[in-house]
């Protein structure tokens, strides 16, 4: 997708929240949705199953207004975390400008995190995208759970974030770390745009 349209003075960023099922991707979007003024946000599209699991994807368009002369819009997507929805994940991942990998900090979900991260790399590769060139940040969600249930951020970084990209502890349910994560991925995406990787329309 075109990241920057100089003619129309528009910047449109597609950011995909990726991660294992129940890690809190939709919760991130819901929190953001709740904090964005009505006039700035589009309708949040969420296709969920009866058990509140994301069936297809969530989509939240946000109009950030005019920044530095550019009409800036963010489109936030989530993918369904369950392993059997891989086709959907691939579809949603197409044209992404940045990825937020939402990991579940609970120790018992460690393997799910690793599996999902591998799946992300595979899906990007299948689309001809080198994961090293894709802006990615990690969010370690549910850090507010009792300490004996969750892994520490350095441990998670060591296990998942071997490229040393920015990572954030979070409690998406109550919002801690949600906007920090969004800001982190936005900076990476915009930095990539400034480096000339953005394709003018």
């Amino acid at each position, binding site marked *: 997708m075109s990241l920057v349209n*100089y*003619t129309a003075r528009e910047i449109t960023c597609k950011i995909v929240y990726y991660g294992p099922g129940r890690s809190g991707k939709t919760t991130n979007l819901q929190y953001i949705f709740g*904090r964005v003024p009505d006039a700035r946000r589009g309708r949040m599209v969420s296709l969920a199953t009866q058990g509140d699991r994301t069936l297809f994807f969530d989509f939240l368009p946000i109009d950030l*207004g005019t*920044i530095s*002369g550019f009409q800036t819009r963010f489109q936030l997507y989530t993918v369904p975390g369950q392993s059997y929805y891989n086709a959907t994940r691939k579809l949603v991942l197409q044209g992404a400008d940045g990825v937020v990998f939402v990991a579940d900090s609970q120790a018992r979900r460690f393997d799910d995190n690793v599996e999902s991260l591998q799946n992300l790399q595979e899906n990007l590769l299948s689309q001809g995208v080198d994961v090293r060139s894709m802006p990615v940040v990690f969010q370690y969600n549910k850090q*507010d759970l009792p*300490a004996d249930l969750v892994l520490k*951020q350095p441990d998670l970084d060591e296990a998942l974030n071997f490229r040393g990209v920015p990572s954030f502890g979070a409690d998406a349910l109550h919002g801690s770390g949600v906007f920090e994560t969004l800001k982190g991925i936005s900076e990476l995406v915009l930095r990539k745009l400034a480096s000339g990787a953005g394709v003018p329309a």
Partner: protein
Amino acid sequence: MSPLHPTYRFESLVVGANNRTAATAARAVASAPGSSYNPLFLYSLPGLGKTHILVAVGNLVREVNPTAQVEYLTLDEFVEAFHAAVGAGQADAYRARFTTTDVLLIDDVQFLGQRREMQAELLRLLDHLQQAGKQVVLTSDRSPADIDLLDDRLLKRIAGGLVIDIGPPDYETQVAILRRKAEEKGVTFAEGVFEAIARLGIPSVRELIGALNRLVAFQAVSEVPLDAYKARVLIGGEDEASAIEVPQLEHAEVTVPAATRASEEMIPGVQLGQSDLIGGLAESDFERADDAWMGIEAETTSEYTRYEDHAFEDEFDSSAMLPGAGDESMDSVSGFEPATERHRPSGPADLTPLEEKPPVSAPRDEFGDFLSDLAETLARQVEPWRSRVGEAILRWEGEGFRVTVLERLLQAEEPREPEAALIQYEADAEQLLELRREALDLAPEMADAPQLTDPSNMAAAEAWMQRLRDASRPPSSPSDTWRLEALIEGTGNRMALRAALAAIGEPGTRYNPLVIVGGSGVGKTHLLHGVGNALLAQGASPVACVSAHEFTQELIDAIDRDSVPAWRNRYRRCAALLIDDVHLIAGKDRTQEELFLLFNLFLESNRQLAFASAVPLTELSGVESRLLTRLEGGLVVELPPPDRELRQRMIERILGARGGADADLVNYLAARPAESARAVQGAVQRVLNAADAGDGKVSAALAREVLEGTARRAPAPPAVAPRPVSGVAANGVRSREKMVWNWPGVSDRVIEEWR
């Protein structure tokens, strides 16, 4: 009648996409009241600038024509005046007051719905003013169709004019409004503050200005300048306001009354009558500023109290901490900011001692914060010149300029010297603004011409401007050869001459218009130009003195060149307007329309009008009655053919210039009947020519021979080449002097008639 607020002018109105149509229409109405959109009806939600535009119309009308009667009042005042007049038994005086006004401006007419009797009164007034060519402008907070119980006839009258709505200002307009208002107040803010406020999407200009007042008040008492974040938090809402760091609260007591006292001490500017702090604001603005400040105060006070409550809760939570959560746990989440209100089992943040608790514990405007950070990031990432070009595009697009050049700059991956291109564009745009100002002065209606909107084509703009300057040159002045002193007064023309002198003595007030009627060659043109020269000698300048044919021809040229407003304006600027052979406007509708407008303008501003006509007004057909009645409304004087006394004095003067003549000759010549002064001069000239051809002696016998054809004939005048002569209009003059030698092209005539 309410006084017109002096600062409510078109110049101080920030025009954006939301109000451009309304402002343009209002300006057109103010420039030529009664001639374009009548009535003009503006409506919008409250606080979007209806009253500003309405009052600006009044101010501009008075600026263009200081003697114009402008009535501005709200519907309530209109109703009250009516009731008072009826109560005093002076309903007629009430009606007379409004029927004599030139421009009637009524604000907030939405309240008409409940006042049926006023609807009837307004309907009558509208009809009267429209027929008299007077302007009416109305404003409302809803469209005419949405005003309950509005009389159908009134609705139709309003719909027959122009109805325009004003929308809420867009982002760019809001920034421009904030900048201008801050400039007016002499206050500067850090970069990004206005943009941050504009992003809040405040829908009303009034609220926007209220928000600015809050910023002004806050900055006045703050030791550090407001930045974008603080400004947004300050204005953004109740919750966000708590995030402001208000160091003064350290000295304030927690209880509300004490905090109120503290805040009063903190904003001495407000208590001192706002003289320094918010100079120039309307009283309501002061109240709003005060209310706004009180709002901040209440919020900060309550937040302070909330902080105390939180501290208490936290203290309680720490004592109820789950076993196992200790220092180690706290280390494990280093860098992770705990939630403010904890609903899950208490975490390590609860161990924070009360005195170390950060003072800000309420939810922040996370999205606004995110936006600020993002803007900074983007500003860092995007090449600086691209940002500047982007901002320049927004600015100049807002001014109505074409920005294609700048857009091409942005599209280019590596343009050559983009900074220089931007500087050049902005210099050209500034130059265009200058040209616009000049055009505004010459012809306000043309200041928005597309030729003045493209800085990349300055040559076209200059050429267009030159044409406008040419079209705006003053019209023809009276001929220097025809002076009043050269006219000979006789019994027949005495009244006309005396009337002319009286009109010159009190120009614009005594006899206005002065209409001189008489046959061909009786001296109308001489008298008309003489009046013009006398006015010029008195200091009235410029004085336009043209023939009706010339007037029409100029109008056709102006139509061809699309410069009618400029042409119109050159006449509007004149101190007096004198038109010869005015009967030639018969059948020329557009000429009559333009003359009618000028007529009203000159009449209303007490500037002298004078006309000469070869056809008595009562016999003039093909001229609109509204114009005829106006011509007859001044003084119509007749210049009859010269009587014997006048003929004799003319002959004596002519012959006297050749050394005198005998009484027989003078008597003979004077006794000959003549229809015009020109005929008398012609007869004398023939005799003199015959004398010159013979022995040079001028005598009565020679005159008889020459004029009665009994003897020597004067040599024939030089042969005149035959010229094409077109048909003469029904009311035209059949003398050679009045024949049109250079008939306008057929295409010109067609254009004129079609339009």
